[in-house]
C-alpha cells in the first residue's frame, strides 16, 4: 500500500505538485494522467525520493519512505524512467542486471532472471544480450528499460510513460504482459501515461492531474461517468466516452440468452471489441463462447448500446 499524504513540491516560487493525497491499494495499478508539465513525473519521483518533497509524507506499507537511506529504498522499488535512460556503456544484459547486481545476487540467478525477462519482452537473449543500447530500436530500448525496472522483482513499480515509443501491437502485448506480471507477483504499480486508452485499460484507479493538483482520483468507470471537471471531461475525450466505458467490460458480462449465426466471440473479449465486430459485420447479434469453447449465449447491438450509455 502506498499512502501519499499532503505532498507538495515547490521549486522556488512555483508549486509543481500541490497538496496531493492519494491512497494506492496493494496489488493494484494506479494510472496518473494529465497534460504535459502537470507534475506527474515529479509526483512519481517523490515516491522513490529522487525528488524530496517540500512538505507531506509518503508511506509504503505503513513505513515512512524516509526511514531508509534513499539508495536502499530505490533498490526495492522498480523505476522505469521517462525515455528509458539506459546506460549507453553497458550491454542490454548488464543494463537489465543493474539492480540485482547492486543487491548482490549470485551470477546464475542474475543470468536466469535476465534471460527470463528478455524472453518475455521478445528479445532473444543470445542475440540482444551482448548488444549495446544504441544498437537497438527505440521500442526495443524502451522494453529493455521496463525489463530493467522489473529485474529485482520489486513490490512497487513506478513507470513513467513506459510504452510511449511502442507500436500498437507491441504496446498491447507489453500492456498484457505487465498486467500478467502484476497479477502473478501482486506488484503495486503506479504508471504515468498520456494515453487515456491505456489509462482506462490498465488502471484500477485513475488519477487526473492538472497544474500540480490532483483533480480526480477514481475508478475508470467513475472517471468516465462522472468527470469531476470540464478539464477531466476534455481529457477523457467526450466522443470516446461510450467506447471507453464498453472497453472496461467483458463480453461474458453482457451475454443474453439465445443464439446467433457466425463465428463465436470469446467471453473474455472486451465489449467494445464485440460492438466493433457487430457494427463492422452489420449483424444484430454474435454468439459467445466460454474458455472451454462451449456456447454461452449471444451479445446484441441493442444490449451493448444500452451498456454504452451514461450510467445512472
Amino acid at each position, binding site marked *: 500500500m502506498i499512502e501519499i499524504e499532503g505532498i507538495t513540491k515547490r521549486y522556488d516560487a512555483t508549486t509543481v505538485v500541490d497538496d496531493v493525497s492519494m491512497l494506492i491499494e496493494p496489488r493494484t495499478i494506479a494510472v496518473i494522467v494529465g497534460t504535459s508539465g502537470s507534475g506527474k513525473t515529479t509526483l512519481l519521483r517523490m515516491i522513490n525520493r529522487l525528488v524530496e518533497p517540500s512538505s507531506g509524507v509518503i508511506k509504503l506499507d505503513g513505513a515512512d519512505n524516509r526511514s531508509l537511506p534513499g539508495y536502499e529504498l530505490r533498490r526495492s522499488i522498480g523505476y522505469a*524512467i521517462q525515455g528509458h535512460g539506459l546506460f*549507453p556503456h553497458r550491454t542490454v544484459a548488464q543494463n537489465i542486471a543493474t539492480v540485482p547486481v*547492486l543487491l548482490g545476487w549470485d551470477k546464475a540467478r542474475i543470468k536466469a532472471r535476465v534471460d527470463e525477462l528478455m524472453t518475455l519482452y521478445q528479445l532473444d537473449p543470445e542475440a540482444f544480450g551482448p548488444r549495446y543500447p544504441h544498437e537497438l530500436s527505440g521500442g526495443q530500448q524502451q522494453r529493455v528499460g521496463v525489463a530493467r525496472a522489473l529485474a529485482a522483482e520489486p513490490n512497487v513499480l513506478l513507470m513513467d510513460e513506459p510504452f510511449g515509443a511502442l507500436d500498437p501491437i507491441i504496446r498491447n502485448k507489453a500492456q498484457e504482459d505487465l498486467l500478467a506480471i502484476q497479477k502473478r507477483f501482486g506488484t503495486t504499480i503506479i504508471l504515468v501515461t498520456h494515453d487515456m486508452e491505456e489509462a482506462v485499460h490498465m488502471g484500477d484507479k485513475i488519477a487526473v492531474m492538472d497544474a500540480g493538483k490532483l483533480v480526480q482520483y477514481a475508478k475508470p468507470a467513475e472517471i468516465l461517468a462522472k468527470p469531476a471537471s470540464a478539464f477531466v471531461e476534455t481529457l477523457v475525450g467526450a466522443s470516446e466516452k461510450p467506447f471507453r466505458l464498453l472497453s472496461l467490460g467483458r463480453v461474458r458480462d453482457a451475454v443474453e440468452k439465445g443464439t446467433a449465426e457466425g463465428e463465436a466471440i470469446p467471453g473474455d473479449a472486451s465489449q467494445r471489441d464485440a460492438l466493433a465486430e457487430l457494427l463492422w459485420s452489420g449483424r444484430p447479434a454474435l454468439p459467445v463462447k466460454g474458455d472451454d469453447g462451449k456456447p454461452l449465449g449471444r451479445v446484441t447491438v441493442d444490449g451493448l448500446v444500452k451498456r454504452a450509455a451514461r450510467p445512472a
Partner: protein
Amino acid sequence: MKEAGIKTWLPSLLRLALVVLLVAFVTNPGWFEPLLKPLTENNAPAIYNQGSLLTLTLLHLRTVLIATVAATIVAVALAILVTRPAGVEFLPLSRSLVNIGQTFPPVAVLALAVPAVGFGEKPTLIALFLYGLLPIFENALTGLTTLPANVVEAARGAGMTGWQRLTKVELPLSAPIILGGIRLSVVISLATATIGSTVAAKTLGEVIIAGLLSNNLAFVLQGGLIVAALAVLIYDGLSAIERYTARRMGREAE
C-alpha cells in the same frame, strides 16, 4: 574500391614507417650520419656524442609520463570534487588555481623551483605537472557536467550510491573526454620537457641545447625531430584509444 583501400592503409603505413625510423634513429644513430653531415661545419660531429640518444629519449618519456600521471590524478580528483554537491562552491577557486598554473611561463616555474628543490628532474616535473593540469581538469569538468541527465537519474533510480554512480556511470561515460584532455597535456609536456635541460634535467632538450651552444645545426635538428616524432605518434595513439572508448561508451555521436 582501390582508393578506399589506400585511404585506410596509408595512415597506418606512415605511422609504422615513422615508428621504424624513430627506433632505428635512437638505437643506431650512426646509420643516419651521412644525412646529417652536410648540416655541420668544421668537421663537427653530426650525431650527438655526449650521451646515448636512446637513454635521453627514454628519460624524456619518463619525465613526461610521471608528470602526466600526477597531473591526471590531481586534475580528475579536483574535477570530481567540484562536481559533487558538497564541492560546488570550490568550483571557481579550483578553476582559477588551475588557470594560474597555465598562465605562469614554464621558464619562470623552473627558475622558482630550482632554489627550492635543486637542479635536475624535479623542477621540470613541477613545471610539466602544472602545465598538464588545465587541459585535463577542463575536459574532466566538461565530461562530468555534460552527462545525459536521464542516464544519471536512471543510475540514482536504480539505487546506486554516490560512489557507485561515479565509478560505474559518470567516470566511464566521461572517459573519452578526459582522455582528450590527457592527450593535449601529453603533447604540451613532450615539447615543454625540452626546456628542463636548462636546469640539468636529462631530456632530449640536452641535444638541442648542445647544438645551440656549439652552433651545430645537426644536433638541434635531431633533438627536435625525435621530440616531434614522439609527439605525433603519441597523439595518434591516444586519439585511437579515445575513439575506441567513445564508441564503447556510446558517446560517439557527440
